[in-house]
């Protein structure tokens, strides 16, 4: 009896010790998301997909890293939709929480400052949704950063796709652009679109700007109306696009609008309603025309969160997939090993399509899709390459 008791005590102690040791050896990953501020829907999608990816891995017993199975622990930080808080969140995750790698932020104007911190602290950061080239480039040398990756295509690619779509599929000859000059993403893609549209034989008749948080676009839209374009390109975030379209219609503008991947949130449909019907935008994947790999993710996500995953959710899920794969192939839970494994990862089959990092670049090669807004839903229209 006594022996049995001491055996029991011993096994309890051992299991406690193992549990403590196991907890210590868990893999900590950080997320920086826009949970508050001007694009909370983006942050929420990012957090939801991150939590789902981690839950799936832990439910399967953890990640096989080297000889051990390790659980994954998620640390989520809010950047409040501010550039300085994005950098501060990256700093906190790296030094205080000691995460192995970071996913996020999503919008380029927040991803760029966070990426600077990650690069200088030698920690891998994958941004799911930042398409501005600057995010993964070193500011001083303009060469690729070492530690910053992304799960999406970049704006020079997207701008080219959209210019070709506007000229070819929509058969337009004159385009106007209205964009937020104070935001990296909007400004970058507006300029690429302009260059690409003009190079392919089109004419940009108006190139108008505003600054973040403006609500009145009447002066710019009146100017655009005066220039008589065939199509208007609005590379702006989902909370602003409905206002721009509604005000344009009130001014008697009847030409179609096109947008970029910043339109891809379900919130756009809630805020814009019927005003957006029939318009097109380019994005990363189409939930209604997804590959078999994506189908399971879409059904699971809908079951848990009650809505179709938007592109941010899909890309965040892929960013975690990339991290898990590279951790497994690295064989050790080490920041430098993750970076090495990620940059040499063979083609990854993600929810948003196949992707692979080139040797000299941190931007994956992948294709875009064009979606159309139809009866209050995003519907697949066509695949697109420039």
């Amino acid at each position, binding site marked *: 009896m006594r022996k049995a008791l001491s055996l029991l005590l011993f096994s309890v102690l051992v299991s406690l010790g193992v549990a403590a040791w196991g907890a210590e050896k868990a893999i900590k990953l950080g997320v920086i998301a826009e*949970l*508050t*501020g*001007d694009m*909370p*829907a983006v942050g929420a999608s990012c957090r939801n997909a991150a939590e789902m990816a981690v839950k799936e891995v832990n439910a399967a017993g953890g990640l096989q890293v080297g000889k051990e199975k390790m659980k994954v622990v998620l640390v989520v930080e809010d950047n409040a939709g501010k550039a300085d808080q994005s950098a501060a969140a990256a700093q906190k995750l790296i030094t205080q929480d000691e995460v192995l790698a970071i996913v996020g932020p999503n919008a380029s104007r927040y991803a760029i400052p966070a990426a600077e911190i990650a690069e200088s602290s030698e920690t891998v950061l994958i941004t799911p949704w930042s398409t501005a080239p600057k995010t993964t480039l070193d500011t001083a040398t303009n060469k690729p950063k070492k530690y910053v990756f992304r799960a999406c295509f970049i704006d020079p690619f997207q701008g080219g796709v959209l210019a070709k779509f506007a000229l070819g599929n929509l058969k337009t000859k004159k385009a106007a652009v209205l964009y937020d*000059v104070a935001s990296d993403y909007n400004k970058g893609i507006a300029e690429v679109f302009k260059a690409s549209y003009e190079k392919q034989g089109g004419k940009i008749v108006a190139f*108008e*700007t*505003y*600054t973040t*948080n*403006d*609500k*009145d676009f*009447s*002066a*710019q839209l*009146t*100017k655009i*109306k*005066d220039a008589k374009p065939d199509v208007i390109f609005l590379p702006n975030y989902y*909370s*602003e696009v*409905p*206002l721009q379209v*509604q*005000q344009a*219609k*009130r*001014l*008697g503008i009847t030409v179609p609008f096109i947008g970029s991947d910043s339109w891809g949130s379900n*919130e756009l449909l*809630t*805020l814009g*309603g019927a005003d957006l019907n029939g318009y097109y935008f380019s994005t990363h994947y189409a939930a209604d025309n997804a590959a078999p790999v994506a189908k399971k993710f879409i059904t699971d996500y809908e079951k848990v969160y009650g809505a179709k995953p938007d592109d941010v959710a899909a890309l965040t899920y892929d960013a975690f997939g990339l991290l898990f794969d590279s951790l497994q192939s690295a064989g050790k839970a080490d920041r430098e090993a993750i970076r090495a494994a990620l940059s040499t990862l063979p083609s990854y089959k993600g929810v948003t399509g196949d992707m692979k990092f080139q040797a000299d670049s941190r931007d994956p090669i992948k294709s875009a899709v064009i979606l159309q807004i139809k009866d209050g839903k995003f519907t697949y229209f066509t695949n697109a390459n420039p």
Partner: protein
Amino acid sequence: MSEGIVYWLQQTLNALQLGSIYALIALGYTMVYGILTMINFAHGDVFMVGAFFCFLAAVYLGLPFVPTLLLTMLGAALLGAMIERLAYKPLRHAPRVSAIITALGVGIFLENFTLALAPYPKNIPALLENVTWDLGGVSLSSLQVIIIFLSLGLMFLLDYVVHRTPVGMAMRAISWDKTFVPLMGVPLDLIISVTFAIGAGLAGAAGTMYALAYPVIDPYMGIMVGWKAFISAVVGGIGNIRGAMIGAFILGGVEIMVTAFFPSTYRDFVAFTLLMLLIVVRPYGILGQPRTQKV
């Protein structure tokens, strides 16, 4: 009409709409300053809460336009009076800086309180059937007409109240002297509360109209608009009601016209340079009077 004139007329209409909204908010700044020589920096956020009241009335109570407008004005007026009672009254004899810091604090409180309840931008349903008329190339929407005329109506009503009624006379008297006027039987606290309530009520009206014209609202929408209305009040001569209206139409006009005739990226830069020059020429604003400081 020639195309140039059509373009010019259209931009003038745009400017009138923007100016009307700035004016309604600027009145609140100027009234409070006139009476207490205090800048109520929470006023832009009262405007934001007004837009959210409008959202609540329109979506949850399903009210049509007129009751929504009245309810929003009433709600905002009560909020304004309550802020004064709870946050500013205890500080009436404290140094000026304390009151300004408190006002900033109240503003941040309102933003984050709203943020906690409504983290997502909200969409305001169309309360009015919008009709767009085409007048020889100039587009005039029924919404524009309502915003401009309702704002002008409210401004004339306020002007009448301040200059032609006993309450207005009491306000003007208190703004002149806060020590002896109460001795003559003017209820100081009540008049101050009424001033805050009227200012906030107008901000509520502005919130409703803003929400109809720009139907995506969020907790931070009051910051920039609030600043612009404050600048309008200063340009017009802070403390002066007619000045605030003139200042607001000048600011709205300059903003729209700079965009109309220059590259739009220069808007704020050119607009605010012009306003600063105006302040240099007339430091007390267009209708402001220099006040002698009592030492």
